[in-house]
């Protein structure tokens, strides 16, 4: 394997440890919420009790879109984005592209939220940044995703922060690889009868090494999403297009063609959607219309990858005639290496390319990464425990974040279930997270020991997690029979998963004193 000199290995051990210590807690928060966000769609269905299984694109929508277009100023017909909201209802954003006084390219227009019957439930005016936000019925899944994507720090700083966290993960992964002298031996070594510290180190090594390829994928794809718009686009636009971001967007994402501004009646959108579903075998995730009501109108439908493939499918239609033109690469006008690479970034990051199976694998590997980050922090502290008693505060902080974050997340889920029927979930979901975080921090300052703190947080998390199931029923969510009958077995599956995980956590926390303290008693010898 890789053989570094003794002083170089020592340096790499320091780099590995410090890279984790400096941003390790943020990294843990990003990975943990990312792990949960793998099932964001399913959590959204479960938490809001959605029982509709037919997509908005499979139901008639043409009449609604025409009605909306008639009541929307023509200046916002430049672009129309169509997507699903809530329980398979339709969302439509009529907009045009503008450059703000500070030079930022924005989409400004009207965002219509339709109800099940296709009537306007809500209309919001403003830029995309202003109108898109959590709604009462998706406050929980939005909160999860927003925590993962930018840690609730305003753009672009939140994205930059999570991008930097991705780079830290990369450094920790590479340095972790370099300090293994016997990689293949180490990944199969679990000394169960050794001292608690060595047992923990073995588990850290095994989980870290097995999930190393996954760590690379996550670090690369995650930093792509973080840096794409914040750094990549402005820098490349500056160098290649004299700073014209719109010109770069047109070159990369646009549909080139001669402009034809003559008014024309739009083709039937139901026909386009049905044809797109027939060709791909998948319901669109998103549909965009360029130049609505003009002779040069173009409709692009975006679909998940076909079975056995990893690249999403994009189809292009003539909007005025509702006629299929061709299958379009996600990037550029012809298939290219860059376009394919760009297209597979999302499936690689979200793990949604093979349905529930790939999602389950991504979830499990995410859990392994959380374990590696948490145990890595604990091992770093264990090595310094006898020399540096002053690190007690850091030890408590690691415990507060490590077990306090899951506790705060399940509390926010409980608050969502109570507040959603009352219409105040967008307020109470983050509020409950903050209150629960405050409780965890207070516990961190007052608990008699780190072990007691960890045990209490695990016990409370398990209790709330198991309690989510009866809470959902009491708050009016569909029962298992109704959910399965409606074709949403995921509701019953998540109920069962939360119940079992909650009971296991309570049992584990209760049994903890009889086993061993989660904090190792003696420092680990250097390798």
């Amino acid at each position: 394997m890789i053989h570094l000199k003794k002083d170089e290995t020592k340096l790499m051990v320091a780099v590995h440890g410090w890279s984790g210590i400096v941003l390790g807690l943020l990294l843990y928060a990003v990975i943990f919420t990312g792990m949960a966000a793998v099932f964001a769609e399913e959590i959204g269905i479960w938490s809001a009790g959605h029982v509709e299984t037919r997509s908005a694109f499979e139901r008639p929508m043409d009449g609604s879109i025409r009605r909306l277009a008639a009541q929307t100023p023509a200046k916002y017909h430049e672009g129309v984005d169509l997507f699903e909201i809530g329980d398979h209802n339709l969302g439509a954003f009529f907009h045009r592209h503008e450059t703000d006084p500070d030079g930022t390219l924005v989409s400004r227009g009207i965002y219509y939220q339709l109800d099940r019957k296709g009537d306007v439930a809500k209309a919001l005016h403003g830029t995309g940044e202003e109108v898109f936000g959590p709604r009462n019925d998706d406050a929980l899944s939005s909160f999860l995703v927003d925590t993962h994507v930018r840690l609730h720090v305003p753009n672009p700083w939140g994205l930059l922060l999570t991008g930097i966290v991705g780079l830290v993960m990369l450094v920790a992964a590479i340095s972790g690889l370099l300090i293994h002298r016997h990689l293949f031996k180490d990944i199969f070594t679990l000394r169960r009868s050794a001292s608690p510290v060595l047992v923990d180190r073995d588990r850290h090594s095994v989980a870290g090494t097995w999930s190393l390829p996954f760590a690379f994928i996550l670090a690369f794809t995650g930093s792509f999403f973080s840096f794409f718009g914040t750094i990549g686009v402005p820098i490349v636009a500056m160098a290649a297009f004299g700073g014209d971001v719109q010109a770069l967007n047109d070159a990369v994402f646009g549909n080139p063609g001669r402009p034809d501004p003559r008014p024309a009646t739009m083709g039937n959108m139901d026909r386009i959607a049905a044809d797109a579903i027939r060709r791909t075998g998948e319901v669109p995730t998103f549909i965009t219309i360029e130049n609505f009501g003009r002779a040069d109108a173009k409709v692009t439908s975006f679909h998940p990858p076909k079975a056995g493939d990893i690249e999403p499918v994009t189809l292009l239609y003539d909007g005025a005639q509702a006629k299929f033109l061709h299958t379009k690469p996600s990037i550029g006008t012809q298939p290219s290496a860059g376009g394919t690479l760009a297209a597979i970034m999302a499936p690689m990051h979200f793990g949604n390319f093979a349905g529930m199976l790939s999602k389950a694998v991504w979830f499990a590997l995410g859990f392994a990464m959380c374990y590696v980050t948490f145990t890595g922090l604990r091992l770093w502290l264990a090595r310094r425990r006898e020399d540096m008693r002053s690190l007690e505060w850091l030890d408590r902080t690691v415990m507060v974040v490590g077990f306090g974050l899951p506790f705060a997340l399940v509390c926010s889920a409980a608050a969502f279930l109570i507040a959603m029927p009352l219409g105040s979930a967008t307020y109470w979901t983050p509020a409950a997270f903050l209150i629960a975080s405050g409780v965890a921090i207070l516990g961190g300052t007052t608990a008699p020991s780190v072990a007691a703190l960890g045990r209490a947080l695990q016990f409370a998390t398990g209790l709330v997690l198991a309690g989510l199931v009866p809470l959902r029923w009491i708050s009016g969510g569909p029962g298992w029979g109704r959910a399965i009958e409606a074709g949403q077995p995921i509701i019953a599956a998540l109920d069962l998963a939360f119940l079992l995980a909650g009971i296991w956590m309570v049992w584990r926390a209760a049994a903890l004193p009889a086993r061993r303290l989660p904090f190792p008693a003696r420092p680990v010898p250097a390798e």
Partner: protein
Amino acid sequence: MSQSWRKWTRILLAGPGAVLVALVVMAGMPLWLPGGAAGVDNLVLPLVLVPLVLVPLIWAALFFHACLDRRLSRVAAIAATLFLFHAGLVAHKLLVQRSAFEEHRS
């Protein structure tokens, strides 16, 4: 060179130096990468591969090189070469754009 001076030079090269070089390489890459079939590979590859693969990898390579290479002069020379080549390409492109703009205006 004193031990402390070497240490701080190494930290500067591994930290801000590596970030700066990686960003300048991202800006300069579209100007020499081939366009590909769709004519966007030179744009997309930096966007996809640089922030995704190349920027982290260039940054990580420069970072670990600065940490592990005993010859500090070699670390500095490689970083400087990458920086000067790509910064030169970007500067040339901007100058050409500026002169074209002034010609168009006159």
